[in-house]
């Protein structure tokens, strides 16, 4: 099982890194850039668990460790491992 997890900042939390990248892109001449948001992407390989178990286990991992739910939200998909 392969979990693909996206962790992004919640609305209303200042994304200073995104802002910095936004400025940098504009300065480099990419004036079409209107907005930039930065987040994390994680891939976690799981072994010996059913999709259902994986669903609840990965949710737990996100809540506990992978995201700081004070400021971040997360979403993930599960795929069979290659």
């Amino acid at each position, binding site marked *: 099982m392969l979990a693909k997890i996206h962790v992004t900042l919640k609305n209303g939390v200042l994304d200073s890194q995104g802002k910095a990248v936004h400025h*940098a892109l504009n*300065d480099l*001449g990419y004036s079409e850039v209107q907005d930039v948001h930065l987040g994390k992407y994680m891939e976690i390989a799981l072994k010996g668990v059913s999709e259902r178990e994986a669903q609840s286990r990965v949710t737990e991992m996100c809540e506990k460790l992978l995201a700081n739910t004070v400021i971040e939200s997360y979403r993930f998909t599960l795929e069979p491992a290659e």
Partner: protein
Amino acid sequence: MTTPIPITPEIVAEHGLSLDEYARIQELLDRDPNLVELGIFSAMWSEHCSYKSSRPHLKTLPTEGPRVIQGPGENAGVMDIGDGLAAVFKIESHNHPSFIEPYQGAATGVGGIMRDIFTMGARPIASLNSLRFGDPEHEKTRYLLNGVVRGIADYGNCMGVPMVGGDIYFDACYNGNILVNAFCLGLAKADRIFLGSASGVGNALLYVGSKTGRDGIHGASMSSAEFDDSTEEKRPTVQVGDPFTEKLLLEACLEIMKEDWVVGVQDMGAAGLSSSSFEMAERAGLGMELDIDAVPRREEGMNAYEIMLSESQERMLFVVEKGKEEDALAIFRKWDLDVAVIGRVTDDGIFRAKENGVEVVSLPIETVVTGALKCDRPTQKPAYLAEMGTLDLSSHEVPADCGDALKQLLASPTIASKQFVYEQYDHMVRLNTLVVPGSDAAVLRVPETNKALALSVDCNPRYGYLDPYLGAQIAVAEACRNVVCSGAEPIGVTNCLNFGNPENPEIMWQFQEAVRGLGDLCRFLDIPVVSGNVSLYNETKGEAIYPTPTIAVVGLMEDLSLHCTQGFKQEGHVIALLGSNLEELGGSEYQKLFWNECRGKSPQLDPQTEFDVQKLCLDLIRKQWVQSAHDCSEGGLAVALAESCITGPKPVGATIELSGDLRTDALLFGESQSRIVISFPEDRLHEIEALAKTAGVPFSVLGWVGGQDFQIKINQKEFINQNILTLEDIWKNSLSHYGNRVTR
């Protein structure tokens, strides 16, 4: 086992070995090497590992003295500083990797030098970094500066070793080859120094640190090759650092080194497992057998070739007494490190490695370590010197507005404050930094004693370009002078010799001259060279860097309370100069900035004068007669004075009155050597003057500290009158404006 790959001339060439060298390998072995063996030869005989071009010259350096516990030849130099303690230090380059990937290249450079220090049994207590970038306007410079600084910061900060100083120059000669030289200093008990020797037949070889991956394979031969357009393709060889693992490795090593069954240790730097195991065995005059399958690895399917040559970071090789394996494993596991017994010391002088039970390497150790063809490379005085050696000052006018010229110099990124850089470095951790970056030298207390160590690193490449002999001497002189200005006596030197392609006789001449200059002045000043590093092939498409013999000096202060800084302390203090002003503009920042050239004669250096000036300055500081001391370097007297005004407890002005018949710009901005600006309460004037006279040191009163204006008059005529806060703003913020700009 697959059938062995026959060694073709192409394969030999890909390994950076000449046909002569390959013939020698065949002769020494009396057979063809296999591919793994060829890879080992390639790495071990690369310039980087074998010093084949530089060794004959390096042998001429003075390396002995009463304080020297360990000179060149080990991971780092070791000097006795009394109280049963030893200072362990070295400087090393990470130039090529940093040009390819500035962040990781610089980070792993810091990691590498720190390992060199703690493998000796020392706890690193301070670092320096010496950086050279291309023209600030060059399209890659800002990116490289930011990447390098961030890499150094992230690695050093995480390690908890304060980065207390350094130097940065910008010059177009580094457009295609930046320099990243990293220095580290550690403290050890003088009688607990560990060496990289694998003695004791039957003793166990322990691998510890990170797992081995495919990074940096061919790193050692890459850093010994010139760049060309195909450099891009060499990129996957870049190593990635993990400072967290290195921090654990540091603590674990220092813990295990308390045990008396640790026999030897060496870090896996360039050429990884190959160089560390061969060199350790060679130093002991013994053999070694190694089980490739036991090496912890990060990826599946790695073969013996990759494992022997990988330059994965944060790895060490330990030799521990037979029977103590379990104790050793326990300590490393406590620190969550990967660790395994991978081999044994044998008695036959042969290195054997087995993979899946089959012997894949069987090489005579001494042959590999010392058998590289000695290169007696030809030298020739460069043609450019004849052309560059003259400077016709009459064709250049003195600037109409010297105040404006001063402002431009203060804004030049080479002269401007490096606060933007050192603010990104933790320079305070471990609570030893008595003088933080921003003065001539950093001063560190030696924990649990009343002593302090002072550190400085220096090298002006333009002087080296105009005269490599003098350039190297001035680098030593200035680094020592910086240390002296902080109140310490220079005790030891380490050096990193950055040059172009040694196969070019003109480059080799530069190298030879620089080493001669370094050796001569160190002998004169009686300061041993205890460690160092050579980086050649700093050259892109035939464009070599200027000779850059970077010198780091360590100074000792018996009483830490007697340290001194460069800033003026109080209004009303008298400002004076030790040393004399000459008409020397060749190679100056002023010349570059206003006339866009680097030509003429390098400033001269009289070793005796230099020695006398330094000795007097140290006396004055130790007597506590002076409240500040600052050496004159880039930008000359006017810049040195302005810096002293800006860097005191509060910015303060000064009134300076000069006289004489020197060209105004040479007097204000010339870079004559052996000059130190001091300040002191007026009632000390006569004593100081008298002492200078006895010492035979030229002494002149320049003016007074005070007010908000920085004023310089020459022969009663005003040439500079600027508000000190304006100057401060320019000097303090220029580099951060530059670094933070995105577009050019």
